[in-house]
């Protein structure tokens, strides 16, 4: 067919170009940076599953929309929050928290003890963390004092009251059925728009009783893929991008468009060991498993950061619990072989076998919630294969490990454990290394010395020197007996845009520290 005379090639190309160009032009105009003071954009992997403090409190405390009674320093020591001061009775059974007199909720009402009591009562419902504390009653004493009465001394109470699930909301936040219908907090920022599960925008609250923040508006966007977050930072769309993958970090550092800030987190990749199994009950076998692991190799190849190779359970950021004097965990294949031989495992062409000819075969469960875990599991499998230990790796979901603990079917479990869910790790350690072990901690192993030390630390009645001795005792036993085997530590890596100054990262991941930030000149 011939071309219709007035339907020329030029005309067709014009038509072809018109659509995309129009669309691109309109969207480009929409995408133009509105002004130099566009909201500070944070992007992270954490979605907003709802408004309940137990599930989404972390989103609002990090954005400084809501406050908790207590805050914490980088090393976990209690600091004033909504409570400007606190005191504990001599018997350790009554705590009194005095609220900031000028504190106001975002709806203009005063922060009263009664409002705080309502929130704390709701936060005591299991499985929220406050349910772990031996609380007898939470009461308001006048308008400005909250009294917490205990059935037994509990020194970690201030740490629990710094957890996001205990955030304080105004009475107006609650619906008639007791559920949270809106977030009316008392922090320096107030919510201006929200679209769960992905975004929330906040603006400065003029009625805040502290210094006025320099950043007027902040927007948080949950983006599931780390590649997306990294590209948002690189493209200038995000001022703070959390949760970056190693490959993106290499690219970001190479391009140099953004600064990458880092802080070591109190989170450790651990291997949970079922010491109740005959093979793993022998401490020499657990030590051999540890000695066969090339931690710097795993940290360098998989996390792109050799400094993250764990030398002990607690990373240096947990200053009270990290003891540099402890002999570091390291790779030593000869020592591993010697220990296995001493434990009765003889090397054969098919691997290790005991005196009756039974092979040393183990199964390891892990899950992909943290994408590096299956990769680390594969590396461990190969390193143990070289030591003669056959390990089968199963990748399921995070619930498999607590379930395997409960029914006794778990042999080895690889997980990333956060030891500072609350600023004081004593409660977490009691769960993990108490007399009956823990879902994410010891299994088939117990140490009365560790249990006693943790119980004494938990009461909070020891002097600082005594507490330090107890912590040293706990870490020394865990390092020697290896009920869980530390593999690597974690580092939070955040891409920081060039228009921001005053950025500092919170190792406890409680806050974005927005009030300390300002726009670059």
């Amino acid at each position: 067919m011939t071309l219709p005379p007035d339907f020329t090639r030029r005309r067709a190309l014009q038509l072809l170009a018109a659509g995309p160009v129009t669309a691109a032009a309109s969207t480009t105009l929409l995408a133009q940076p509105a002004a130099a003071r566009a909201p500070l954009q944070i992007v992270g992997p954490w979605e907003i599953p709802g408004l309940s403090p137990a599930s989404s409190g972390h989103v609002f405390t990090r954005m400084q929309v809501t406050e908790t009674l207590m805050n914490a320093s980088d090393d976990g020591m209690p600091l004033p929050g909504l409570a400007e001061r606190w005191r504990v009775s001599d018997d350790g059974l009554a705590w009194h928290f005095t609220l900031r007199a000028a504190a106001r909720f975002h709806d203009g009402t005063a922060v009263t003890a009664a409002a705080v009591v309502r929130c704390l009562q709701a936060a005591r419902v299991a499985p929220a963390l406050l349910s772990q504390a031996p609380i007898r009653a939470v009461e308001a004493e006048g308008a400005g004092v909250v009294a917490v009465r205990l059935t037994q001394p509990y020194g970690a109470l201030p740490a629990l009251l710094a957890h996001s699930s205990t955030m304080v909301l105004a009475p107006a936040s609650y619906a008639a059925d007791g559920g949270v219908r809106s977030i009316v907090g008392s922090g320096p920022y107030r919510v201006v728009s929200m679209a769960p599960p992905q975004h929330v925008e906040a603006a400065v609250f003029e009625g805040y009783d502290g210094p006025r923040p320099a950043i007027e508006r902040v927007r948080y966007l949950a983006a599931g893929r780390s590649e997306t977050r990294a590209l948002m930072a690189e493209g200038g769309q995000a001022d703070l991008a959390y949760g970056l993958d190693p490959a993106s970090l290499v690219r970001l550092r190479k391009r140099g468009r953004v600064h990458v800030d880092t802080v070591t987190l109190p989170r450790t990749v651990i291997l949970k060991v079922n010491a109740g199994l005959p093979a793993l009950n022998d401490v020499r076998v657990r030590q051999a498993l540890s000695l066969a692991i090339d931690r710097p190799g795993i940290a360098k190849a998989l996390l792109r950061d050799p400094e993250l190779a764990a030398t002990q359970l607690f990373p240096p950021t947990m200053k009270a619990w990290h003891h540099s004097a402890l002999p570091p965990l390291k790779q030593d294949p000869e020592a591993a072989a010697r220990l296995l031989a001493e434990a009765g495992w003889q090397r054969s062409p098919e691997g290790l076998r005991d005196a009756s000819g039974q092979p040393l075969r183990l199964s390891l469960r892990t899950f992909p919630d943290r994408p590096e875990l299956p990769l680390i599991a594969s590396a461990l499998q190969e390193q143990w294969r070289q030591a003669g230990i056959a390990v089968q790796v199963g990748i399921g979901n995070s619930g498999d490990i607590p379930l395997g603990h409960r029914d006794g079917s778990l042999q080895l479990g690889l997980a990333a454990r956060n030891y500072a869910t609350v600023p004081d790790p004593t409660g977490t350690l009691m769960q993990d290394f108490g007399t009956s072990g823990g879902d994410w901690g010891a299994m088939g192993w117990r140490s009365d010395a560790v249990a006693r030390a943790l119980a004494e630390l938990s009461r909070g009645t020891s002097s600082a020197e005594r507490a330090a001795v107890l912590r040293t005792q706990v870490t020394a036993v865990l390092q020697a007996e290896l009920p869980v085997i530390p593999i690597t530590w974690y580092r939070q890596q955040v891409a920081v845009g060039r228009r921001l100054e005053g950025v500092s990262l919170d190792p406890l991941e409680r806050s974005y520290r927005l009030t300390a930030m300002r726009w670059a000149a």
Partner: protein
Amino acid sequence: MNKTLKTMTPDITRSRTAWTAMLLRRAIQILALGLLVGTVCFFMARSLPGDMATRIAAGRYGYDLVSNAAADAVRLELGLDRPLWLALLHWWGDIVRLDLGTSLVTGHAVWREVAHQLAATIELAVASVFVAAVVGLPLGIWSGLHAGGWVDRLTLALAVVLRALPPFLLAVLLMVVVAVQLDAVPVAGDDHGGSLLLPALTLGLGLAAGLARVARSAMREAAASASFEFARNKGLSDRQALIRHGLRQAATPVVAYLGVHAVFLVEGAVVVETLFAWPGIGHALVHAVFGRDVPMIQGAALCMGLLFVGFNLLVDAACLALDPRRRMGAVA
């Protein structure tokens, strides 16, 4: 006059019957699809490995706070120990009352969650079809009118490349080139302005590739048809013949192709929405599967299915409107 009226009345009746038959067919499809998709999703979600209560607890509180105690509390609260058949009957009962239930993770009504997400997905689907039409149709029509020309060959090569590229890779390429290097649009987000362009291009370009090839064949066939030749012979200009007869004739297979490939938009949305942090129903479905949120899985899958049926309904309507023979043939 009376004779004219007599001949028009059966035509109108036949046309109405065709429309009624189509609507009835789709309504039955919607009912069957609703029950089937919901039931299949129910069994699939229940048969996934791992403990449901633990996954829901992880979705609610994050896995750091998941323990057997937390899972037990969730199991008790949601009655997850109920027999399977009882839970399914309960869901069927809800569906009859047009109630999709409550999300096990957020505690909100599934209708409320899905309505918000469905709007975003429809927005993305419409934008993707627009991109596909704007890019694919002109190239396809031109290639059909000039088969074997350089535009035809280039379109073929582009179509092969675009169809072969997985949406994930195409999305990252677009992000790097258009958003990061050219700084023309945002990389991702949910602001419904510039953020829509890249996900719409990712889905739309894949669709455009197929659309261009179908439009080419249809246009070529239309241009070679006797009716097109007759239109030109009776004195219409090439342009008039193309617009009045050629395009209309070629439009039917193109529209039918769009209907068949609506599923491409729906399945592509799962990947694309997650990658671009677009708050659509595909993204919600992925999270519901991870969190073992059965009512949300059922609700999201049901709505995606209905979206598919709705899209096909529009296609049927367009085909009926375009092709009078279908209206007549329905009763023949």
